[in-house]
C-alpha cells in the first residue's frame, strides 16, 4: 500500500489502538465481574451461570460504550443497564420470559433456595437468576466507581467472588485458574498502557500472590470449609412423616393392590423408600436432612468401585405415602416437579405436588464377587449404639458370630443364620412390631415373622457384632413391571468398604439375580460360594487383623478449620497492626527525631517524601529533593537544606536552626497533603519509610 491510503490505514490503526486503550479498564471491570459470577459454576453448572452473566456484562458494556460516545447518557446509566440486563436475562434464561415473576423470586429468595438445594442445583429461574442479577449490579457499580478510582472499581467484582466462595470454595486447579483470571482482568484495569514501567512489577507480584493463595487453597482438602454458608432444609419440609415400617403387615393383608409400575431395561431387585438407622428399643426412625433435589446428586466419595448408570421409569398407581420409590445411589430424577431428597440415604420425598410418573437414574456399583467377598466394613459410618439390648439377643449375637471379624462375609453368615433358623410368616396372622420385646419374641421363641422382624432383628444382631447396618423399607421388584402391596419388604443394608450400602435378604424371599449384573448379582454370587462358618472362623483367626488406617478412634482429618482460623486471625492481626501500629511507630520515631534537631528534621522530611511515593535515594541531598519537589514542598525543602548545611557542614557545634528546620518539615507535610484527607491517610498508613 502506498501513498495517502497507507497513511490513512496507519491513522485508522492508531485510532483503533487508542480506542482499545480507552476501553481496556471498563473491559477489565466487566471481565472481573463475569469471572466472579462464573465462580458459581459448581453450584449451578457452567452453562447455567456463564451465559446469563455474559449476557448482562455485554449489556453493561454496550451501555458504557454508548456513554463513551455520548457522555450525556451518563445520567441514564442505571436505568439503561438494569433494563437492558433484565431483557437479556429474559432472553437467555429459559423460563423467565414465560414467568417474569420468577425473576423477582430469583432476586428475593433465590440465594436461600439455592442453599436449600443439592448442587449442582436445577437451573430454574427462581434459583439461578440471583447470580446474573448480582453480576449486573457489580458491573453497574464497577463502571461507576471506575470514574472515581481504578482500584475501588474492582471491589464489587471481588465482593461477588467472595460471596460465591461462601457457597462453594474453589480449591486446587480451579482456584488457581479463577485467581489468574481475576488477576488478568484486574491487570487490564490497574495497568496504564503503555509507559507504566512499574506496572509489570505489580502485575507479576499480583500474579505471584494469587498463585500462592490459590496453591494454598489447593492444598486444602476439597471438603466443606467452615466459611461456607449453612445449607438449611426447606422451610416447607413436613415435620412428621409416616413410617412405612409400621405399614408392612397392613399392606401384606391386601397384597394385590397395585402400588406402582416400573419400566426398565435391566432387572431391578428392590425399590427402597426410606433407610432407618436410629433405634430406641421400640421404634426405628431416621432424622433425614432434606434438600431440594438439584440437577444431579454426586456419588458418595466412599464408593471407589466402578459404577454403571441405570434408568427406570416409575408410574405411581395407588400411592399414599409421602416417600417415593428410589434407589440408594440416586443420581437424578427427571420428568418430575421439584422433589426433596435426603442425600445421605437417597430417599425421595414429594415436595408439594406428588408426581404420577418420573424417571429415576442411579449408579449401580460394578463390583467383582471376589472383591466383595474379601471386603471389610465401615464401622465408623454409623453410631452402632442400640441402648440396653436384651440378654437373649446379646447371647444369640455372640453365638452366631462371636469368632468372626466384622466383614461382608460375617454379614452373609448372619443372613444365612436367619434364613435357615427362622421362617417367614404368611397368611392372615402376621406378627407386627419391631421393638426389643417383639424382636426377642421373634428371635428366641416364635422364630417366625415378616420381613419387618427379620430386618430389624438382623440390624440389631449385626450391630451387636460390630457391623454397620441399617434398616430399609421398600418394595421388592417382582417378575414383570407391576409392584403390589405383597412386594413390600424391609431389609437390612450393611456398609461395605469401597462399595457403600449393600442390601441383604435375611428372609430369603427376594428373586435370585445371580445371572444379572451389578451389586445384587455380585452379592448373590458371594452368597452362593460362602464357605462354612467354621472355615471362615478359622481364616479370620489365622489372619492378622486388617490394619486400620486410624486405629485410635475416628478418622483423623486435616485440621484445616484451625488453619483457616489461624490464617484469618493472622490477617486481622496484620490489618490491626497496620492501621494502629504504623502511625504509632511513626509518632514514636518523630518524637525521637525531634530530639536530634535539624538532623532529625532532615530524616523526617525524607521519610515524608518517601511515604508520598517520591524516590529518595541515598545519594540525594536535601537540595536535590528540593529541585524535584514542586511548589511549597520544594520551598520547604530548600529552607530545610539551608538549616541542614549550617548544622552539619559549617563546623559549628550548636544547632540554632532546629525549630526553623522542623517548621520547614511541617510546611513540607502540609504541602504534600494539600488539605486532602485521602493523601493524609495514605501518608499516615504508608510503610515505605519503615521498610525501605
Amino acid at each position, binding site marked *: 500500500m502506498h501513498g495517502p491510503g497507507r497513511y490513512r490505514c496507519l491513522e485508522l490503526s492508531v485510532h483503533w489502538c487508542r480506542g482499545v486503550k480507552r476501553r481496556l479498564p471498563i473491559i477489565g471491570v466487566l471481565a472481573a465481574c463475569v469471572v466472579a459470577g462464573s465462580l458459581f459454576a459448581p453450584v449451578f453448572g457452567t452453562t447455567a451461570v456463564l451465559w446469563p452473566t455474559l449476557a448482562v456484562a455485554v449489556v453493561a458494556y454496550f451501555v458504557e460504550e454508548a456513554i463513551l460516545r455520548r457522555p450525556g447518557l451518563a445520567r441514564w446509566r442505571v436505568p439503561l443497564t438494569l433494563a437492558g440486563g433484565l431483557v437479556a436475562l429474559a432472553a437467555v434464561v429459559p423460563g423467565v420470559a414465560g414467568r417474569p415473576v420468577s425473576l423477582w423470586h430469583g432476586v428475593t429468595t433465590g440465594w436461600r433456595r439455592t442453599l436449600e438445594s443439592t448442587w449442582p442445583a436445577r437451573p430454574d429461574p427462581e434459583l439461578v437468576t440471583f447470580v446474573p442479577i448480582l453480576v449486573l449490579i457489580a458491573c453497574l457499580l464497577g463502571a461507576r466507581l471506575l470514574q472515581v478510582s481504578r482500584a475501588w472499581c474492582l471491589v464489587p467484582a471481588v465482593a461477588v467472588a467472595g460471596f460465591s466462595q461462601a457457597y462453594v470454595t474453589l480449591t486446587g486447579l480451579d482456584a488457581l485458574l479463577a485467581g489468574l483470571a481475576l488477576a488478568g482482568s484486574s491487570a487490564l484495569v490497574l495497568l496504564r498502557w503503555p509507559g507504566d514501567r512499574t506496572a509489570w512489577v505489580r502485575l507479576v507480584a499480583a500474579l505471584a500472590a494469587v498463585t500462592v493463595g490459590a496453591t494454598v487453597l489447593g492444598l486444602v482438602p476439597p471438603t466443606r470449609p467452615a466459611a461456607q454458608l449453612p445449607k438449611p432444609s426447606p422451610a416447607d419440609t413436613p415435620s412428621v412423616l409416616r413410617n412405612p415400617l409400621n405399614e408392612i403387615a397392613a399392606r401384606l393383608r391386601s397384597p394385590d393392590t397395585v402400588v406402582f409400575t416400573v419400566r426398565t431395561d435391566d432387572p431391578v431387585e428392590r425399590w427402597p423408600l426410606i433407610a432407618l438407622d436410629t433405634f430406641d428399643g421400640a421404634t426405628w426412625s431416621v432424622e433425614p436432612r432434606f434438600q431440594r433435589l438439584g440437577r444431579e446428586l454426586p456419588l458418595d466419595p466412599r464408593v471407589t468401585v466402578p459404577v454403571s448408570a441405570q434408568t427406570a421409569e416409575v408410574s405411581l398407581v395407588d400411592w399414599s405415602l409421602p416417600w417415593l420409590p428410589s434407589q440408594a445411589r440416586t443420581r437424578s430424577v427427571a420428568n418430575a416437579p421439584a422433589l426433596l431428597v435426603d442425600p445421605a440415604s437417597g430417599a425421595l420425598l414429594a415436595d408439594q405436588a406428588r408426581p404420577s410418573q418420573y424417571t429415576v437414574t442411579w449408579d449401580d456399583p460394578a463390583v467383582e464377587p471376589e472383591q466383595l467377598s474379601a471386603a471389610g466394613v465401615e464401622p465408623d459410618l454409623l453410631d452402632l449404639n442400640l441402648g440396653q439390648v436384651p440378654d437373649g439377643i446379646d447371647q444369640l449375637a455372640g453365638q452366631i458370630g462371636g469368632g468372626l471379624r466384622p466383614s461382608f462375609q460375617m454379614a452373609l453368615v448372619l443372613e444365612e443364620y436367619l434364613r435357615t433358623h427362622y421362617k417367614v410368616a404368611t397368611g392372615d396372622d402376621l406378627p407386627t412390631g419391631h421393638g426389643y420385646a417383639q424382636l426377642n419374641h421373634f428371635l428366641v421363641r416364635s422364630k417366625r415373622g415378616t420381613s419387618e422382624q427379620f430386618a430389624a432383628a438382623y440390624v440389631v444382631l449385626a450391630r451387636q457384632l460390630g457391623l454397620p447396618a441399617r434398616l430399609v423399607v421398600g418394595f421388592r421388584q417382582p417378575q414383570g413391571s407391576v409392584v403390589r402391596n405383597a412386594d413390600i419388604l424391609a431389609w437390612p443394608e450393611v456398609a461395605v468398604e469401597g462399595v457403600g450400602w449393600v442390601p441383604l435378604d435375611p428372609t430369603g424371599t427376594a428373586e435370585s439375580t445371580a445371572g444379572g449384573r451389578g451389586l445384587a448379582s455380585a452379592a448373590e454370587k458371594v452368597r452362593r460360594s460362602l464357605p462354612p462358618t467354621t472355615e471362615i472362623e478359622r481364616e479370620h483367626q489365622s489372619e492378622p487383623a486388617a490394619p486400620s488406617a486410624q486405629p485410635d478412634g475416628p478418622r483423623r482429618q486435616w485440621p484445616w478449620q484451625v488453619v483457616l482460623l489461624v490464617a484469618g486471625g493472622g490477617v486481622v492481626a496484620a490489618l490491626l497492626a497496620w492501621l494502629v501500629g504504623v502511625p504509632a511507630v511513626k509518632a514514636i520515631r518523630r518524637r525521637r527525631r525531634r530530639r536530634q534537631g535539624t538532623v532529625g528534621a532532615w530524616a523526617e522530611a525524607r521519610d515524608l517524601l518517601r511515604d508520598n511515593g517520591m524516590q529518595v535515594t541515598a545519594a540525594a541531598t536535601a537540595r*536535590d529533593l528540593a529541585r524535584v519537589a514542586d511548589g511549597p514542598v520544594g520551598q520547604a525543602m530548600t529552607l530545610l537544606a539551608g538549616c541542614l*548545611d549550617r548544622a552539619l*557542614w*559549617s563546623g559549628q557545634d550548636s544547632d540554632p536552626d532546629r525549630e526553623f528546620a522542623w517548621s520547614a518539615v511541617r510546611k513540607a507535610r502540609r504541602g504534600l497533603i494539600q488539605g486532602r484527607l485521602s493523601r493524609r491517610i495514605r501518608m499516615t498508613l504508608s510503610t515505605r519509610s519503615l521498610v525501605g
Partner: protein
Amino acid sequence: MKRGDLDPQQAYELIAGNIERVIRGKPLVVRLAIATLFAGGHLLIEDLPGLGKTSLARGLARSIGGRSSRIQFTPDLLPGDITGVVVYDQGQGKFVFHPGGIFANVVLADEVNRGTPKTQSALLEVMAERQVTVDAETHPVPTPFMVVATQNPIEMEGTYRLPEAQLDRFLMRIEVGYPDHESEVEVVALDGSGLTPDDLEQVIDLETLREVVTAVRSVYVNEAVMGYAVKLAAATRLHSSVRYGASPRGSIALVRAARAIAATEGRQFVTPDDVKSIARPVLAHRLVLTSDAALARRTADDVIGDVLEETPAPGNPVRRDRQWSLGAVT
C-alpha cells in the same frame, strides 16, 4: 585597580558582572571559570567554534588586570615560543633569557590541541609548578598564574589530542554551549555596539585576587564532605566503563573547586551539594573510558552521572543496627 578588602563573593560578583557584559546567558560557565581562577587552577574550555571560548578567556584576563598573553597554538609553534629562549647578547657579552608567552598572569592558550605534543609538553612544568626551566635555569612565572586553554572537539585534522598528564593539570574542563534565543539576540546586538572583551575594564587588582585566593583556601571543609569527594573520585576507578579513573589529584581538585564555589556564594564552608555541582567539570576530563564504552557512545559525563547517583551523600540517615543514625557525619 585596588578595590580594597573584598571577600570572595564580592570579588566574584564584580568579575562576573564584568564578563557577562560580553558573554551573555552563560552565568554558570562564567561562575565555573571564576571559581577556577579563585581556586588557583587552570581552565580548559572545550566547544565548537564561535561559542565565546576566547571571549570568555579574554574577558577573564581583562577583568583582573595584570599581564595577559595569548599563544595561538599552531603545528609550527615551538616550545621555546612558549617558555622562552636563551640567546647570546653581544652587547652584554653573555647569554640572556628571553621569556616566552607563558610569562603572564593569565595565559590564553588558544586552540591548544593544534600544537604538537612536543610543544604542548612545554606547558606541563609551568602548569604544575608555576615555573619554567630553560637551560637548567628555573624561572618562576608571576602570581597569580592561570592558563586558559581552548580547544575544538570536532576538528580532528591537524590536531593532537592532549596527553592525559596535561589534561589532569587542568582544574576544570567546561563547555560553553549554544546560547538560548534571547541571549543570542543580545550577543548580536552587542556586536553592533562594538563592545569587545578587550574593551572591558579591570575590576580587581592582582593583590586583591591573591587575597581572595588565600581566603578561598581557608574555607572550611568537613571531613565527611572531604570523604565524599574522595569516594566520588574513587568510584570513577571502579566503574565498568572506565579504564583509568580520576587520580588523587582529581580528589584534591574536587575539594579545591568546591571551596571556590562555596566562597563565590558567600559561604565559609563546603556542602555536599558544592561537590556534586562541580563533579562533572572537575572529574570528567580525567577519565579514560574503555573501548567498549566508547563504542556504546558512553561519555565521561555519563559515568560521572552514574557515580553521583550511586554514591551515598553524607548526612543522609542510614539504617544501622536497627537504629536510625547519621552515616559519615562527624
